[in-house]
């Protein structure tokens, strides 16, 4: 029987995908793992790969059409195989936003554009549909529980309401994929344990409850400091002179590295709020907000505290570029432990950024401007930078955030401190 190719959930929040382009066409031979089509999700343009070998028998969704996750977009089978009539019935929910048309028959496969790695998907749908009652599915969706991780107690292993209630009541462990998401570690790390879960103490719980009630759902507070960037500017000029045409270091790169190194010294700010516990990360995965055409996305520099300035700079530029082209993979924009948002290029003096949950903080970077300041009893023009940290008060108290900012400021005002 022909295998259905369905629209897969290529991002954690994807509900439908727009078929940008069919790479394979009806009649083409396909192998498991080969890219069939490019699909635009809510976050990026991703690749839909084959999950069976055979011939692409029929394409059921035209280029430009938007298809809900789970709906059939094509069929793979033996050459000449007939598609089961009921299986091939049109799906009314597939919305074609363009009046077209079958894909052009002779566009042909483009192997060079396709040869990138097949995108790893959290769990392939081919492994069999999860048996769950409609109610269980709805509860799972609402509470973010991954049904695939549950053992159903109903007939034939059907996941039912009771199983969900038990899973939701359990401490956030196995059934909570958002917590358990495995983050690929591109570089070896000094500690073997990526994080430590510390249960909430009663006072912490009370703080969480009271502050959420007063300004929820995340009780933000804001700390602003002004940093003297004269020595950072000198360091940057010297490093760029030395690098010559081997690269260029920007202020943003220096700030990113300083934030990463300061976080490594202040684990209390490098944390996730997790309802009944706080996850203090030993790893520093730094998210950086990037404005894209119709919104923003936060690609992540993994283990940023272990990377050199030039590595951070190169990675930041590469990620930002792909973010703007909507070519980020889900694992490249999830899993940050702390984030940075920079509006300096828009001449913003200072601003407050909104925390990206479950992270506990974000630093908003303004523009570097010359300001008159008193140095040694004299008014002098100095390059100044305003940093504003938004803190989740359930995790970070005023003094905790302030000491982190103090370290960050010292590192920027005296870049040699980053060597300490």
């Amino acid at each position, binding site marked *: 029987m022909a295998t259905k190719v369905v629209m897969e959930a290529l991002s954690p929040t994807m509900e439908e995908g727009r078929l940008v382009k069919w790479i394979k066409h009806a009649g083409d031979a396909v192998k498991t793992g080969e890219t069939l089509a490019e699909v635009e999700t809510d976050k990026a343009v991703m690749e839909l790969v084959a999950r069976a070998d055979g011939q692409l028998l029929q394409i059921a969704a035209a280029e430009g059409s938007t298809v809900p996750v789970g709906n059939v977009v094509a069929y793979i089978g033996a050459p000449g195989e007939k598609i089961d009539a009921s299986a091939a019935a049109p799906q009314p929910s597939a919305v074609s936003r363009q009046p077209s048309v079958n894909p052009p028959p002779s566009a042909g496969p483009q192997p060079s554009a396709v040869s990138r790695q097949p995108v790893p998907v959290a769990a392939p749908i081919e492994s069999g549909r999860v048996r769950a*009652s409609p109610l269980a599915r709805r509860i799972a969706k609402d509470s973010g529980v991954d049904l695939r991780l549950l053992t159903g107690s109903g007939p034939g292993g059907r996941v039912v*309401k009771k199983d969900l209630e038990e899973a939701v009541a359990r401490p956030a462990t196995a059934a909570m994929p958002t917590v358990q998401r495995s983050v690929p570690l591109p570089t070896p790390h000094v500690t073997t344990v990526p994080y430590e879960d510390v249960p909430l103490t009663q006072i912490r719980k009370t703080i969480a409850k009271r502050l959420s009630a007063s300004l929820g759902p995340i009780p933000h507070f804001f700390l602003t400091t002004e940093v003297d960037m004269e020595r950072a500017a000198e360091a940057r000029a010297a490093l760029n002179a030395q690098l010559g045409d081997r690269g260029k270091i920007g202020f943003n790169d220096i700030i990113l590295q300083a934030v990463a190194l300061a976080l490594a010294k202040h684990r209390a700010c490098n944390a996730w709020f997790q309802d009944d516990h706080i996850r203090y990360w030993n790893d520093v995965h730094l998210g950086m907000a990037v404005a894209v055409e119709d919104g923003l996305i936060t690609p992540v520099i993994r283990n940023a505290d272990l990377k050199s300035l030039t590595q951070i700079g190169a990675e930041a530029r590469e990620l930002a570029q792909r973010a703007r082209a909507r070519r980020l993979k889900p694992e490249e924009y999830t899993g940050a432990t702390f984030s940075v948002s920079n509006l300096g290029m828009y001449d913003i003096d200072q601003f407050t950024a909104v925390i990206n949950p479950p992270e506990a903080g974000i630093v908003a970077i303004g523009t570097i401007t010359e300001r008159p300041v008193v140095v040694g009893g004299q008014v002098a023009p100095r390059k100044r930078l305003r940093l504003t940290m938004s803190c989740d008060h359930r995790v970070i108290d005023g003094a905790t955030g302030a000491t982190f900012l103090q370290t960050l400021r010292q590192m920027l005002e005296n870049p040699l401190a980053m060597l300490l």
Partner: protein
Amino acid sequence: MPTLTYRDALNQALREEMQRDPNVFLMGEEVGVYQGAYKVSRGLLEEFGPRRVVDTPIAELGFAGIGIGAAMAGLRPVIEFMTWNFALLALDQIVNSAAKMLYMSGGQIPMPIVFRGPNGAALQLSSQHSQAWEAWLAHIPGLKVVAPATPADAKGLLKSAIRDNNPVIVLEGEILYNTKGEVPEGEYVVSIGKADLKREGRDVTLICHSKTVTITLKAADALQEQGVAADVLDLRSLRPLDEAAILASVAKTNRAVVVEEGWPHCGVGAQVVDVIQRDAFDQLDAPVLRITQADTPMPYNKQLERAAKPSPEKIVAAARRVLYLE
């Protein structure tokens, strides 16, 4: 509040409506001199005379047709069938004339007529006289179909049926006629199209009507002893169907069992399940189950008849299955 039998509640409704409106009259086999095969029309001939309580020959098609003609002429006939099994002969008049008159006359000729009589099985009346016809009748656009389970509902729904300007089918029950219950005196009407929550629970919805309300309430008692609280929803009206009441209960309990006297294939329960799967899909934690008569002609043998009919035990077992307790 006085306690009446179901039969006397119907009698009270007929008497009050005949007193209230001189256009109301009763017609059928043995309704006059014999005072009704089940004594529903006791005393009516004496009070209202032979022009308004009319005995007919054994000719269902004929007197159903005369009733329809009278309704076209402005009267409000109540046609009694000795049982709905005999009314099969009159289905051409009911389906082709009564149900379609308003529509085919372009809204000019209303059809204020009631067809009533006992429906479904009693005890050992065998295959031809033990049939539940509600699925047949509720299938027809143009008819309203009610099936009261209690004396109070019998009075309230029959009064609503007589006052309705559309043909209304009232399904009674031989073994319901002797059941007793409190019945409000005087002006008491039950709106057609409203289900009634006969018992409230949170764990499972048991949907039923007519005679199955009694056995479903027994099943709910048995479930209560097992720690399961059931909503018992009496549909009362099969067309129109109170979909909102069905959906509200299922939204609360996430599971349902639908009980009826009739056969399973294309039954009333199938229509109820259709409503649930369509509009409460995301509320369901288990497939909806149905309890019906066995898919055979009704056996005459007493043990086989008992085995073929819905029972509290069957309802309890189905409820336990949708609760994943089995």
